[in-house]
């Protein structure tokens, strides 16, 4: 690949874009620490507990990875749609429908073993894609705002899942489905299911697709300027529809993997709950970079699994973790908006100039 020559200003801008999320995470942790201190507990002890609880030993790391895994999928789902300029807030619905479809393959068709596993994953992905296609069709043909339709479809998916686990495949009348048969579950590597690996590979693949293929090129062009894309002969509507489908398929695959890989291996109340919006937040913090999204999802996983440990060690509610997570989102989004402000840009540009001049003087 050709080496990129960038001007000093652009380099400083790039650096700012990387620094902003890191600084916002640190700020959020500091504010979280203050809150813990105000509650009369020791924040350092708390954070230590959080780290031990999430990354303390291989088993805990595996648990954290499994917790982060669905968020990688919903994060990538949001990233892909946003890259094409559409705001898919329906990651959760697509995730759930993927899970429901997989459950149908298992219990409806009665498939088991590797065949069931493979078909479950594929059908989950396809149905997720279809669930993403619906708002796409509504947007393209009738101009309906996808932010509204995707959220609405989330509810449809949610109540459909309730029907599935309460009526269709209920485990002896309880509000949960039967468990996925042992033979059709995802295999494990080092205590974590292989879905984690799939998620990471998918992140790299999506990055490659977006930044290194001509298909991704067109997706990006449409996302940044649909009018110019049209004038320059891109099939804009088709690309937007494809973006909806792929975005939905990613989330659907995530739902299938969640069901087939992670305890309790069943659909029940709370399956996929909040994952869609977490995915949106992850995409924003990762600045729409698929590989960065993997790391942000991991951070969210650490916060979730570590939060429980923090609660039991220093006795603060897990809500603290929710607060920290919310703060990260606020700081990151505000920070990214702030670095785009002319005054702040001018400040950093001036600093950069001063540095260059200093270097010249030294030389």
């Amino acid at each position, binding site marked *: *690949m*050709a080496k*990129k*020559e*960038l*001007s000093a200003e*652009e380099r400083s801008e790039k650096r700012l874009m990387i620094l902003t999320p890191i600084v916002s995470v640190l700020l959020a942790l500091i504010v979280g620490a203050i809150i813990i201190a105000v509650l009369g507990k020791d924040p350092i002890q708390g954070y230590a507990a959080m780290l031990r609880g999430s990354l303390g030993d291989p088993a805990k790391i595996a648990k954290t990875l499994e917790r982060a895994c669905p968020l990688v999928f919903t994060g990538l789902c949001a990233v892909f749609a946003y890259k094409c300029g559409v705001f898919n807030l329906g990651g959760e619905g697509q995730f759930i429908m993927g899970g429901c479809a997989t459950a149908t393959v298992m219990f409806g068709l009665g498939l088991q073993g590797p065949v069931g596993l493979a078909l479950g994953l594929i059908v989950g992905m396809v149905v997720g894609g279809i669930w993403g296609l619906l708002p796409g069709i509504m947007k393209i043909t009738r101009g309906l705002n996808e932010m509204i339709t995707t959220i609405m479809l989330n509810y449809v998916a949610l109540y459909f899942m309730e029907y599935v686990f309460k009526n269709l495949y209920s485990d002896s009348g309880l509000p949960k489905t039967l468990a996925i048969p042992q033979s059709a579950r995802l295999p494990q590597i080092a205590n974590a299911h292989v879905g984690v690996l799939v998620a990471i590979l998918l992140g790299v693949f999506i990055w490659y697709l977006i930044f*290194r*293929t*001509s*298909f991704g*090129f*067109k997706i*990006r*062009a449409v996302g*940044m*300027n649909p*009018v*110019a*894309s*049209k*004038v*320059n*002969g*891109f*099939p804009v509507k088709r690309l937007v529809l494809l973006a909806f489908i792929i975005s939905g398929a990613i989330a659907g695959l995530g739902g299938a993997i969640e069901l087939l890989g992670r305890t309790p291996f069943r659909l029940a109340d709370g399956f996929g709950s909040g994952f869609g919006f977490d995915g949106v937040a992850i995409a924003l913090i990762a600045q729409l970079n698929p590989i960065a999204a993997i790391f942000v999802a991991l951070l969210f996983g650490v916060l979730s699994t570590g939060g429980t440990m923090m609660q039991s060690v220093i006795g603060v509610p897990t809500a603290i973790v929710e607060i920290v997570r919310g703060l990260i989102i606020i700081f990151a989004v505000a920070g990214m908006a702030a670095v785009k402000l*002319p005054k702040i*840009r*001018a400040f950093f*540009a*001036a600093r950069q*100039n001063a540095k260059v001049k200093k270097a010249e003087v030294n030389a």
Partner: protein
Amino acid sequence: MAELLRMENISKCFGSFYANKDVTFDVREGEVHTLLGENGAGKSTLMNVLVGLYQPTEGKIFMHGREVQITSPGVAVENGIGMVHQHFMLIDAMTGLENIILGDKRHDTPLLREGDDRKTIEGLMDRYGLEIDLDEKVANMSIGMQQRVEIMKVLFRGAELLILDEPTAVLTDLEVEGLFEIMHSLTSEGKSIIFISHKMREVMRISDRVTVLRRGESIETVDVANVTEQELADLMIGQKFQESTYPKVEDAGEVAFELKGVSYRPEVKHGGLKDVSLAIHKGEILGVAGIDGNGQTPLAEVVTGLVKPESGEVYGPDGKEIALFSPRSFIKAGLGNIPEDRNKMGLVGDMTVAENLVLKQTTSDKFSAGHGKWLKMGEIHDYANKLREENDIRCTSVEQTARSLSGGNQQKVILARELEGEPKLLVAVYPTRGLDIGATEFIHNQIVAQRDAGCAVLLISADFDEVLKLSDRIVVLFEGQVMGTYPGANPPIKEISLAMAGK
């Protein structure tokens, strides 16, 4: 004449960039003072400082010899400074009267007192010869009358100093005459006018004095009586300026593209086409003259495949009637397009220069492997650097975003991309709008070179001088209709400008 305004040593920085540097000039009572300069010379910044939109980094402003701090547009109005913007700030759905009194707080009551205001305004209309239909909605007014509403807004608020920012750009020749009469009656009543323009002929005619700005600095203030047009042009660009002329083609080749009786939304006065027939020949530039908003946009949309005409026939380069209207099929048939709005339609601003240069070719075997699947990043980079050299695109790197380039360089990127495809038909819409003289020359040379290479060129421009300079044949559009076709060599200028006004 007494001095009304004095701006002394005004500097305005944005970061490390000086938009204005040590600018000094003054306006006397009852004079028309022109600010002359190329795009980016700092005229707008200076005026934004004067009307309180920007705070100067350094420098002082005096009104009637007293120093004033213009901290907001409101303060500017209190000091009797009013600006008529190039793009009108009117509310289309409201009447002339409503627009004029909008936001004015002269009455103590919270109620509108339209009757009183109407009397005041009618008095002003008589005094300055401003003809406005106060009860007509702005949407239904001619551009000239909309401008008079803008001027009245400023007068109604008691302005002594009016800033007219490129007021003639949108007017027909006839309306320009009307505007100049109004300007005369304003100055004879003691009002002063700052006139911003780069049209030499007008500047020479209407101004008393001219201040030339160049690269943010005030170069010189001269009495119009003592200079020639050529001297002003030289001052403006800072060197001897020799405008190039191009030989005209009179015996063009066969027809490359033809419209027959094309209509598109003919019921819309300022956005439709009515029964338009024209033919573009190989190796000629067909210029479309006309005042902005008389069908240029829909014409461009039809010939680039963005919209399908409601009736009529369109014939492509192969002589066959075109049935499918999509930019994609037009590009395949050999269309090169320099669109109306380079940022909105021509470039993807957040993508790099290199990416914009290959925008149309990402699936070609040259730039992608596996039949248009994987991009060859190295090839793209080298190709971009090659085009950058050839077209003198000034940027620090081709990996810079297209948005960060200047207008002229952005246009060069588009031109490089479009011409590399060796188009059979080149459609150039306002190709030099907002560009400085150097970039304009470059673009003109390239367009003429395409013609000489046998390409059919359709040039749509609201800049009459540009159309005259480049066109081998001239078509005039008025309210969506073709008013006539004229030869490009020794064009009957008078006839054409009458046609542009619909006569």
